[in-house]
């Protein structure tokens, strides 16, 4: 099955099995998938080979998801970030949205839901790039 405008996705999660399984699911659907098992590795990739959409786990040892998010936006503000979270509280969701994440998904995730969110995020990124071509890094 082929879909147009498949984007480049960076999947960041410390849970190896989950990360690899999800990456495989995205890959077979035509996404160019990069993976990182921690915040530092993710930033490295954003700097050198910027993805279009980052799927970022919130709860990680070392650099926390929220901190990683801020650093990603600092390096490249146009990269859209979808946050994965195990925390079910509304407060946390509002906090994430206020910080500027594109959206958030609660673990365990439904792959179709993730696909829609990635595509929406990609669309918005493209719109933003058109609006501010100068700012595109």
């Amino acid at each position: 099955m082929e879909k147009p405008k498949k984007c480049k996705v960076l999947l960041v999660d410390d849970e190896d099995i989950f990360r690899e399984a999800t990456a495989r699911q995205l890959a077979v659907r035509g996404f160019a998938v990069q993976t990182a098992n921690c915040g530092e590795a993710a930033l490295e990739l954003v700097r050198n080979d910027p993805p279009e959409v980052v799927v970022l786990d919130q709860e990680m040892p070392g650099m926390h998801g929220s901190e990683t998010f801020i650093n990603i936006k600092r390096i490249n503000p146009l990269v859209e970030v979808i946050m994965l979270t195990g925390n079910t509280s509304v407060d946390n969701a509002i906090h994430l949205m206020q910080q500027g994440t594109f959206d958030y998904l609660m673990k365990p995730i439904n792959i179709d839901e993730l696909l829609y969110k990635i595509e929406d995020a990609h669309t918005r990124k493209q719109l933003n790039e058109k609006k501010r071509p100068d700012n595109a890094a």
Partner: protein
Amino acid sequence: MRVWDTSHLLDTVPAGKQAAEHVHDYTDSEANRKRIRHHFRQLQTRLVLGLLLGFLLPNALLTAYFHFQFTHTLKNSALLNLEAVAENQKNTIDLYLQERVVNLFNLFHSREFSLQPNQESMDSYLQSLKRFNDGFIDVGFFNARGIQIGYAGPHPQLRGRDYSDQPWFKELRAGSRNYLISDLYTGLRNIPHFTIAVRQVFDGTPYSMRATLDPDKLYVFLRAISHGKEVETTLVNARGQYQVVDPARSPFPASSSYVPPGSPAAGVEEIELDERATLVAYTWLKETPWALLVMQPASVAQSGMYRTRLVLTISLAAISLLVSLVIFLTIRKVVADARRMAEKGQQLQEMLAHASKLASIGELAAGVAHEINNPLAIIMATSGVIRDMLNPEFDLDHSPEAICKELSTIDTAATRAKGITKRLQEMGKARMPVSVQCDLNALTAEVLERLQRVEFKGKHLEVVTRFAADLPQILAEPEPLRQVVGNILVNAADAIADKGTITVSTAMQDGMVSLTIADTGRGIPAGDLQRIFNPFFTTKGGGRGTGLGLSIAASIVKYLGGTIKVNSIPGAGSSFTVLLPVK
């Protein structure tokens, strides 16, 4: 090396705290209230006892002393008063008797005096005596041989009678003094009377003049000079015979039941007279060997004192009672107020504990959700992968082997989730408070043996035990305690990569039983030391640790009233010391 004490950490670890105190708390609030009530009851008792000792006792002692002194002084003063009365009356009686003697002497010097007095002279003597005092009955004149050669009075038959054998005459003739006052006697006339006799020598021959006195008149005189309520005045001789005839008493001769001592010349004492406490003052007369007795019932003499003393005693008792009552009521009110405050404080504390417990439950739920969601995410993602494999569109390897591999990934994740729920259940079970006497040595040895059989297999672990021989038993719940020992031991084994030593030792330390588990493992980084007791904190990779082990251990130890201390040198090893109270 850094040392961490869990006692302060646990206060910031609500999830663990909640676990340990869940059941415990309900009995606790009731126990606390009981404790407060007990404390304040004791306080009140102590204060009231303090009042009794500090106020009533000295007060009672002072009252008793005052009572004693007052009684003593007033009794003395009653006695002294009576003695003074007696002394005063004695002087009056002495004077009375002296006057009578002088009256008689004066007859020798009167114009009518002759050594051979006729009846007319004798009558005039009597008249002259009666002019001085109406107590005189008669008068007689005696020659040297004791013959009454002259007489005037109501008993003319006595004229010419020989008195040489009469005791008074013999005494006067033999005595050194030239006058004599006899005891009361009946004599030749057979009527009670007493005699005053004087002696005068004329030309070498002694003559005597004698007058008898009416004892009734003396009695009247005594009555006239005595005063005071129920005061009785009388005269007795050395043998206690009455020297006045009291119409109220038995007829002459009668004796007083009280015989005054010969010396000192005057005195006062309290005696039993007719079964009645009586104060008696005596004083010996100067002119005659008689003693004046002044008697007054003690109850009458001291009645004023008793009344005053009663009023004072009642007043003091009433004041003491009133003051005690005021202090007692004040203590009760103050203690009740303090107790109310303490109970209110306790209630607030319980409410706070409850609130923090609710918050803890929320945090625990969040933690659990996160930990369960991770394996669930793996399961869903992997099942998605299988679904993709089976989707012909993707044209992936869908051989049974490949699918089986993915399914076992799902199994692993499910097992991990199950492990978490199981640990949570254990956390719940840990709260069953069935405390028994536990031998920490035996319990540790048992856990160690079980672990060595299963968990420690396949590692090159050397386990050294150093159990203190006479370790006292502790009151605890064995199962939670096993968990504590087990969790720490498993951590110790996990800290050792392949080869190492675990040293397990017990000891008494500051009145507590201590269990130390030391390993030669990788140690704990300084940054992690603060977090090792937090729920869901783990450094064990690959989903092996739940991060609940030490958290549960810390909760249990805190519940048992103990603490856990951690020493660790990164790279060299860690040592966990559990301190438990001996109950």
